[in-house]
């Protein structure tokens, strides 16, 4: 249908010049290049804890029983060359894992990335997943990730999407939570021609909790689409969705939030919120809550707002001597960073706030090639605030 060729396993040396923009953050890094996992056995800490990080092919061969324990989730076939991560039971990893999917193409490529993660019983993990294009060539990425949380485990999951304006990314993420599990997600769509995120969370054990946060910042003709779906399948589970967006120029966003409460899930609490700021008349948001409730004993709330910046706050700030431009920046920054309020990795939050600030100043998209990797700001801002 199009000119996109399916990517083949690239040469590792083609990516030698890549450096992560979260450099000041200490993480255990796992590399995917054009969606292909590249193994590096360079981490003793992970080996000591019996954490398995390998290709899916190798997991099928060498860790068959573990791999099969997540069988009903596998969207994968045996020829898939994806990434497999297994965190054994009772493991606490203080340093976050970071998966870096680096996309570098020299012709229009279709890229597939597949990842399966199992977090064992009573284990606690923080994971940062970044998709970055490092040049300005066309690419289409389809990323599939499946995560199994075994009982009493927790996961704090950060997803950063920063791709060039010609490229698109579609992520399909599935999380399954057992009894008493806790999931927090922070979905940051910072730049990209066409971003589509499908996030499905199944609360399959009692007292499971999911806190799903998202931020999208789009301008020019960019398009972002978030489809979030939470299934309450057992009693006493909580879920919260908070997605916020700022749209400039002729950007378009869509939010579809689905809450499903099964008849087996009394004492459910589910909240959903989608808030948007449109900076121009041409920006468009389409927001659709969709609640499907088969139980009487539930607390559900949903809300959606689409608006402009608060004019009374603008006047209040200007009356103190703050310029119109800075007042806007302060309000937008405050709006955006609310979604990070529950994030626990402080250094990462600082970096993300900085990225958000630079994005709002227009520095990150002031030239077509410039994506987050560009460590020297292309634009200069005359506004400085804390």
């Amino acid at each position, binding site marked *: 249908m199009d000119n996109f060729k399916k990517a083949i396993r690239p040469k590792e040396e083609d990516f030698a010049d890549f450096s992560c923009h979260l450099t000041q953050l200490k993480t255990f890094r796992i590399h995917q290049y054009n969606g292909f996992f590249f193994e590096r056995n360079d981490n003793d800490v992970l080996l000591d804890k019996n954490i398995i990080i390998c290709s899916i092919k190798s997991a099928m061969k060498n860790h068959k029983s573990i791999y099969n324990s997540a069988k009903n989730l596998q969207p994968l076939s045996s020829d898939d060359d994806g990434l497999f991560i297994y965190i054994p039971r009772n493991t606490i990893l203080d340093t976050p894992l970071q998966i870096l999917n680096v996309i570098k193409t020299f012709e229009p490529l279709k890229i597939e990335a597949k990842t399966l993660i199992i977090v064992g019983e009573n284990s606690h993990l923080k994971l940062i997943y970044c998709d970055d294009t490092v040049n300005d060539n066309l690419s289409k990425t389809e990323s599939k990730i499946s995560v199994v949380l075994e009982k009493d485990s927790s996961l704090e999951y950060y997803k950063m999407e920063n791709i060039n304006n010609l490229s698109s990314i579609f992520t399909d993420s599935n999380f399954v939570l057992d009894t008493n599990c806790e999931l927090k997600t922070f979905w940051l769509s910072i730049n990209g021609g066409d971003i589509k995120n499908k996030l499905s969370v199944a609360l399959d054990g009692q007292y499971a909790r999911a806190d799903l946060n998202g931020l999208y910042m789009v301008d020019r003709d960019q398009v972002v689409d978030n489809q979030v779906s939470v299934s309450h399948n057992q009693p006493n589970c909580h879920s919260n969705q908070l997605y916020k967006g700022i749209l400039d120029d002729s950007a378009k966003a869509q939010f579809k939030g689905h809450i499903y409460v099964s008849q087996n899930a009394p004492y459910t609490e589910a909240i959903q919120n989608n808030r948007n700021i449109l900076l121009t008349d041409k920006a468009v948001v389409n927001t659709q809550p969709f609640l499907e409730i088969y139980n009487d004993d539930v607390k559900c709330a949903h809300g959606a707002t689409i608006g402009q910046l*608060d004019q*009374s*706050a603008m*006047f*209040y*700030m*200007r*009356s*103190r*001597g*703050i*310029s*119109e431009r*800075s007042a806007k920046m*302060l*309000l937008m*920054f*405050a*709006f955006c*960073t*609310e979604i990070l309020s529950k994030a626990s990795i402080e250094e990462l939050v600082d970096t993300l706030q900085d990225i958000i600030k630079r994005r709002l100043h227009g520095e990150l998209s002031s030239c077509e090639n410039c994506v987050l990797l560009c460590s020297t700001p292309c634009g200069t801002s005359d506004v*400085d*605030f*804390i």
Partner: protein
Amino acid sequence: MSLLEIKNLHASINGKEILKGVDLTINKGEVHAIMGPNGNGKSTLASIIAGRDTFDVTQGEIIYEGKNLFDLSVEQRAAEGIFLGFQYPVEIPGVSIANFMKTAINEQRKYKGLDPMPSMEFMKLMEKQKKIVDLDTKLASRSVNEGFSGGEKKKNEIFQMAMLHPTLSILDETDSGLDIDALRVVASGVNALRSPEVSTILITHYQRLLDYIVPDFVHVLFEGKIVRTGPRELALELEEKGYEWLR
């Protein structure tokens, strides 16, 4: 030269005339009280001086330190030394008072061609001015006015005034909704900032505030005009007789 000169000011909103020819002159160091019934233009006058654009000025002029005020934007007026204490201070979730004040001070300094205030100096200034209105230390790290009580909001207005040390402060019903203790704190804050160089306009309904902040002049704004000007005793007379006799 007077600090502020309002000449024959007419203003309307949605075609309805609110101010019908206001004349008022304020000199440096003076405190003026403006009283009058609700809906007679007191807050409109304050908003127009500060630069709110929801009103149409149809006639007249305002001269501030020799400059035509209508040539200046809201933020330029602030940097020139005009401060409005809001009747209903606005909540700004996610923006801390410290960040808000630092940005305001530094943008005012930039307007004047000065470098940003060094952080240490800013912190010291915050500490000092918080004491003037007895503002809780914890409040300063919170978002601007978010979840503040009525009294805390008004204290925060006076705190901001102390931080920005304006030449002309307009306090729009700063006393409304305050209990007597909060009123004393707010009034003593205003008094602490009084000097021969700065002027204050107090907009109020009650002469109670004027027991604590003694004005040099009392004006009555009635049906869009200043209908009477007198010494502070005028406030007592108004308290006793109401406004109808001025008609």
